[in-house]
Structure formats: structure tokens, C-alpha cells
């Protein structure tokens, strides 16, 4: 993880190499590489969804797949997300391994009936007679004027469902490993990607590997406060941790990677040491991922003695496009650092880092629209 931070700020020639020879790859390319490897390995894997085969190739994340695997295995669909989800489920029940792609997570609301009432329950309510090895890829569009319907991160709706798995990779390495794990999983898996992470780079091994569910990663060790980040909030929390260290606070940063099944043991272990936990979610708080993590922490640790828990996430509003409002809508390294500082030093005067230091390269790089 921390290797990424050593990269020179301007992007490397791509695919780039670290000085020690290791390859770096962008998140977006890691996604297509993962699918290409799996489609090569297993002819039952196919990829479909609106616009997966056009020249923009889902912001580049399906680039090259049509050319390589042909239109029988890589194809667009009508605008019929509800039925197409059913089609994916049926194909999966018949032994295929569909990957159904949605360019925005918001559109999954059209798929809820099939996902909730069939995909997540089929194995159980059919007494183990079927399995539904289906991957649903979805992308969060951080707003940049996109507005209320093109910016939602609705992962908690899926975390709520027994029978669903949910991955939210925060970096190129995990993007590839989670995608491969998702494709090989015999259950429906929701992949929640983040558009603004697409250009970010990390060391990514060339062959196939999996980042399976069940293990959160400690991305940075620290003593004073634990910060749990979800999706791109991991990146922002890492930046916040740097800022905090300048202010004399040592923050541990944890990335759950998979949200369902969710490994809270790693988080609990860290919290048992720091007894101060900030959860930064890339989503709304109410009944969100942050609520679940906080609840589990409280169940596990609050009886043992004081433990401070705080959540930050989207403002409790739809997402507005106007830039000032939109900035205030999202957590950022500054607000994360300030909240963590307040937890770590409850008696010190409030502190927040210089706003100029809280802008992240991967955000500035982006120009709308997408």
C-alpha cells in the first residue's frame, strides 16, 4: 500500500515500473486485466452490460476485452437493467459466470428486485440446488457536478442482505485481486469501484491472484487513533494520517477491502489498543457501513471501558452539483484529520490542517464530465 505513496507525482509511463522493477498499473487497467485473465482461464466467464463494448469501454475498465474475446462474450444490452440482472442470474444458475457491468451504482436501484429477491436468496431458498456465481460491477461517480443521481455509494443496501458479498477496493492491487476473487466466487458479488480511483496507480503483479473476503488490511500502523476508510476514503484517510502525524497524532488506517463478509476482527484489535476509532465512509451514515462497523465495535469493546467512536461520511442530503456545496458534502483529508485529532486529543484546542494540503492528486487530476 504505502509503496504507492513513493511514486513520483506525475503519472509514470504506463504500464510503469518501480525503480526496483516491480510493475505499477492503474486501477482502471487492473480491472480489465483481472477480467481478461479470468476470461482466458475460464470460458464460462462473460461480460455484459450497457456500453461495455463501445470505444469508451466503461471509462476504460473494459478496454480491449471485446477485441480479445469477441462479441459473444463481451456485449452491450438494451437499457433494461431489471431484466438483465435476471438474465445474469439465470445464466449463472446454468453454470456460466456472468459479469454484469453498471457504469454508475445509482442504476442498481433498477436491479434491486432481482438482487434482493432472487440472487441473494436463490441458493438458500432452493435448498442448495443452485448457485449464482455472478459479479455485478458498479462504479461510484464522485460528483463533479454530476448531481444527486450520479454520485451515490449504496453499498450498505447490499451489505444488509444475507447471501451477498460486497467488495470495495481502494487501490489497483485490490481492484485486480478482488475482481478475480469475485469472479471465482460461487456467490453473487457486488464490486463497488470508485471512478476517481481509476487513474491511481499501485504495484500490481502480472499473473492472477486473489484478494479474498475476510481480511481487512492495516494500511498504516499508528498508536493514537484508528481510522477505518471505505473505498476511496482509504486514500483520503491515508493522507489525513500524514497530516495528523505532522500534528503529532499517530493514526492507524484500516481498509476493510470487503464489506461483506466484513472482517471487523482486525478493526476491533486495533481499536482495543487505541480506544479511539473514526470511521470514514464514502456514503451516508444512517444504517450505512459506518453504522455496522461502529455497532460491532461497540458490541465487542464498549463494555470493557471507555471507547470513543465517531463516524464521518456524506452529508445527510442528496449530492448537490454546485462546487461549494459539493465540497461540503464529502469528507476529505482535512475533515477526517480534524475529526481524528479531536478524538485523539479531546482536551487540545480544535485543529484542522491547512486546506491546501488536503487536496488529493487523484481528485485534482479529474475534469468532468465523465
Amino acid at each position: 500500500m504505502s509503496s504507492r505513496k513513493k511514486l513520483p507525482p506525475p503519472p509514470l509511463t504506463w504500464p510503469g515500473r518501480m525503480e526496483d522493477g516491480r510493475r505499477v498499473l492503474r486501477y482502471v487497467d487492473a480491472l480489465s486485466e483481472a477480467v481478461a485473465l479470468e476470461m482466458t482461464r475460464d470460458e464460462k466467464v462473460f461480460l455484459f452490460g450497457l456500453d461495455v463494448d463501445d470505444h469508451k469501454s466503461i471509462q476504460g475498465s473494459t478496454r480491449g476485452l471485446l477485441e480479445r474475446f469477441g462479441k459473444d462474450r463481451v456485449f452491450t444490452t438494451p437499457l433494461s437493467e431489471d431484466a438483465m440482472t435476471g438474465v445474469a442470474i439465470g445464466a449463472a444458475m446454468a453454470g456460466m459466470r456472468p459479469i454484469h457491468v453498471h457504469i454508475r451504482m445509482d442504476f442498481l436501484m433498477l436491479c434491486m428486485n432481482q438482487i434482493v429477491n432472487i440472487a441473494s436468496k436463490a441458493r438458500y431458498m432452493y435448498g442448495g440446488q443452485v448457485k449464482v456465481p455472478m459479479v455485478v460491477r458498479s462504479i461510484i461517480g464522485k460528483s463533479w457536478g454530476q448531481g444527486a443521481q450520479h454520485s451515490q455509494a449504496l453499498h450498505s443496501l447490499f451489505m444488509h442482505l444475507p447471501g451477498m458479498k460486497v467488495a470495495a477496493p481502494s487501490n489497483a492491487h485490490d481492484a485486480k485481486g478482488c475482481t478475480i476473487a469475485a469472479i471465482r466466487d460461487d456467490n453473487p458479488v457486488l464490486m463497488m469501484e470508485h471512478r476517481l480511483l481509476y487513474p491511481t496507480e499501485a504495484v500490481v503483479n502480472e499473473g492472477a491472484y486473489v484478494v479474498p473476503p475476510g481480511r481487512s488490511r492495516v494500511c498504516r500502523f499508528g498508536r493514537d487513533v484508528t481510522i477505518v476508510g471505505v473505498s476511496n476514503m482509504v486514500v483520503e484517510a491515508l493522507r489525513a494520517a500524514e497530516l495528523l502525524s505532522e500534528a503529532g497524532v499517530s493514526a492507524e488506517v484500516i481498509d476493510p477491502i470487503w464489506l461483506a463478509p466484513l472482517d471487523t476482527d482486525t478493526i476491533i484489535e486495533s481499536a482495543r489498543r487505541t480506544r479511539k476509532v473514526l470511521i470514514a465512509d464514502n456514503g451516508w451514515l444512517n444504517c450505512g457501513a459506518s453504522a455496522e462497523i461502529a455497532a460491532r465495535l461497540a458490541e465487542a469493546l464498549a463494555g470493557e471501558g471507555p471507547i470513543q467512536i465517531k463516524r464521518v461520511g456524506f452529508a445527510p442530503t442528496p449530492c448537490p452539483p454546485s462546487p461549494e456545496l459539493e465540497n461540503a458534502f464529502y469528507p476529505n483529508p482535512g475533515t477526517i484529520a480534524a475529526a481524528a485529532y479531536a478524538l485523539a486529543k479531546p482536551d487540545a484546542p480544535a485543529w484542522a490542517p491547512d486546506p491546501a494540503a488536503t487536496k488529493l492528486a487523484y481528485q485534482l487530476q479529474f475534469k468532468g464530465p465523465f
Partner: protein
Amino acid sequence: MPAPKPVPPKKADPARLYRAVRRIRRVEEEVARIYPSDKIKSPVHLSIGQEGIAVGVCDPLEPRDAVSGTYRGHATYLAKGGNLNAMMAELFGKDTGCARGKGGSMHLVDMKANVLGCSAVVGTTVPVAAGFAMAQKMRKTGAVVACFLGDGASEEGCFPETLNFAALHKLPVIFVCENNGFAIHEPLAKRWATDKLCERVRTYGIPAVRFADSDTVKIRDHIAKALPAMRKGGGPIFLECMTWRWREHVGPGEDYDAGFRSKADLAKWQKKDPVVVLAKKLDKKVKAAIDAEIEAELAAAVQFAETSPWPDAKELYSDVFA
């Protein structure tokens, strides 16, 4: 001993068709008889009166072909060769049930017989069936999927979405709309702007035929004739089969006292009762032998269900994930 039907016959065989409709009828009558005892703790949607459609469609199918039924799925399940013992045990909530007590009447499934799981949310199975058919096309199995749906299900957006997709990709799906004129107690007049369903389906380039009487043999022959082209990539077909639900929407009784439909209509449809119509084509002795066989099989199935064990409490947690 049940589920006979290794290779489908070239021609309609009245004895075979009679056996199939009579068997379903008797199974459901038995379910209705047992129901008040509260041994079956699962809402049952009987297809009594509608059996001829499932039998007509499934008779020409091969084992490799699949059916997808609705929550009113006993008939399709049995017509396609779903295991009777496992069905009965499922209604009783037993561990030997086809879904091990985790499905109930509305979620019958028998993947060995290619009976895809039924669903209690109207319409949901339609695109799933198309997806199953798409996999057949991708894997070039030559198999088809018969997808049953009610007149009510045709109103759900996923149905036209699926028609368009199935036609576009020439998927081997037999769409069978069992139009019994009602969704629960609501008549077509309150739900359909017009009754031009077949016309509408044809605008997708899908051949569509309405069977006004839903004669078992006619439906059977129609399917048998359509199959060869479908197996070679000819694309979907559609049947609208007019029919009548004799009993109440859910449960074992009747609902003619509720006033939303009349017993006169029932009488009209009972004249077309497939069990009676097909029985007339048989020699009395042949019929009697079939009937006896069915009774024996049925008694054994109920016995099987009664004596089967309950699922162990820890099974609550099994099969959430594969």
C-alpha cells in the same frame, strides 16, 4: 418410480397425457385435502383446472430442456418430471423436501429434472429463465427453456424487457402466458388497456399464438412442431393460453361466494377439463390402471412426507453461501 419420461415421444400419446394431467390433479386435490390439518405450513396456489397447459408444453420437452414456473408451480414442476416425494416433503417443510424445507410451495425446484426454482415475486422468473436459455445458446446445448407466467406477470416491466432481449439474441425460450383472467381477484379489465397481448408480442418479431381453449393436445403439438427450429437458433416463441383457475387464489378452497367471478364461468371451463377430455380418449381399463398407479404413488408420497425428518435446527445457517 415416479417421473417417467426419458425420451419424449414423437406424437401425442393420450394415455401419457392423461396420466400427466390426472396425476397433477390428484396431487393438488390431495394437497387441498391435507391443507386444513395444518401439516402443510406454506401457502399453496393450486393450478387445478390449468394442468393441461403445463402438460401440453412439457410433454414434448427432453430432459435437457428446462421449465421455469411461477409460485403457482405444482403443475409445471410435476409435468417436467420434478420428484413428487420431494415436492410433498417440501410442502410439509421436511428435510427431504426439494428445497430441504427452505423453499415451500412457492419455491419448488428440481435441477436434476431441469425444473428451475419458482419465485413468489410475480414476474421475477421471466428474465431468469431467459438467462438460463442464454447459457444454453452460449454452450450450444440445443436445449430450450419453457417459461411460464400469468396474465398478471405480463404487466411487470421485466416481461417486455425480456421479450426484447430474447428476440434480439434469438434465445430458445418458450414463453407461456397462462391467462386465467385474474390476478388474485382483479380481472383483466382493471389491469389491461387492451387484450392484444399476442399482437404486442409479435411486434418483437416473436411468433405468438393464442389458445382459446388451451387444449392439451393442440398445445403439445404446437410445441413439438416449434422445437426443431428453436434448437437450431430460431429464437423464442410465445403462447397465450386462456384458462381458468378453479379454486381460490391461494389456499385449498373456492372463492365463488366472494362475488368477483361466477360459478357459471367455472362450469363453462369444467366442460373443457383436460382430465375429462383426455380420459374420454382412453380405454376404460387403461384409465383405471393409470388411476390406480397414481393413487399408489400419491399415497406413497404423502407417507414419505409424513415420515421424513424435520431439518436439523443448524440447517438454518447452511446454504446461505455456496
